């Protein structure tokens, strides 16, 4: 029986995907307001969960210690709480 392996992607691809997600959400919601931040948070988590390769890329970054580099490269104020929430799930 073959074992399912979670798909993953490189740090660069992960950064690029997150840039795209946050750029789209920033167009729709105001990240300076609590309501906008809450919406971006929920939508970002949903978008990440819907992309197994991206989820895998973030999980890999948390595991191999490159998460700080990832956060610095994406440089979005909601990324840290999103990652904290994903880590809890």
């Amino acid at each position: 029986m073959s074992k399912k392996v979670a798909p993953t992607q490189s740090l660069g691809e992960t950064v690029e995907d997150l840039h795209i997600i946050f750029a789209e959400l920033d167009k729709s919601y105001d990240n300076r307001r609590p309501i906008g931040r809450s919406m971006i948070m929920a939508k970002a988590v949903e978008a990440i969960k819907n992309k197994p390769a991206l989820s895998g890329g973030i999980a890999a970054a948390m595991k191999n210690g490159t998460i700080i580099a990832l956060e610095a490269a994406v440089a979005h104020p909601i990324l840290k709480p999103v990652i904290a929430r994903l880590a809890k799930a």
Partner: protein
Amino acid sequence: MSSQTDYTPPKVWQWNTESGGTWASTNRPIAGPTHDKVLPVGKHPLQLYSLGTPNGQKVTILLEELLAIGEAGAEYDAHLIKISDGDQFSSGFVAVNPNSKIPALMDHSTPTPTRVFESGSILLYLAEKFGHFIPTEHSARTECLSWLFWQMGSAPYLGGGFGHFYSYAPIKIEYCIDRFTMEVKRQLDVLNRHLETHSFMVGDQYTIADIAIWPWYGAVVQNNAYNAAEFIDAPAYPHVIRWAEQIAERPALKRGRIVNRISGDLADQLHERHDADDFEHRTQDKIAAASD
């Protein structure tokens, strides 16, 4: 009426009609009709007998959402049931809902008319009948039903428990208010944690779960219920507030929430709804202006 400290329950409880409180004159410990009255039937397939309370709003919001996406079969007449006048105890109403609670629905589009009572059951019936606002995929549908049933089980603590003792009871009893505030805050925390990572109750889909929960929990955090937003520390639930505000912007919801409503701003009261353009011409502010 006894104070909170000197009451010893008797061997057999007796109905005391002087028990006090906002709803004392309408509540009673027996079921069944108190008087004969036939319910009116309008021209549309769906006949709703209701009042614009949170449970009533659930149904009219869903009906307006269905009409907004082009489901003409969802056209409805919404007849006003004044529960303070005991309309829910008429023989006609009891025939539609033996539990004498609003909302109650008769669907005349079926081979023999179908009665539907309990707001959650009505939401499910309409969502299945028209195939909207309920996911088709099994796990998402299950999540939707879980939250729908969560609401049906939880809201009595908010309305019948917290709302009653905080707002309606003739005396303020700390024990009761504490008990139900604790539970309501726990429920709000359940919603807040879920909505932190979900845009709607079932991910990115607006469903009957949102429609069921919004009139109760959205209202309380937006200070539209019991004037209690400050008391329950609504800002502690930012994700619930975000979700409530986001849903409140939906045009169909703005229409649905004022149907059968008999309190608040006159512009937000449409006592009966029989046609789509009643929202333009039959709200209480328009009726008052026309009679001046």
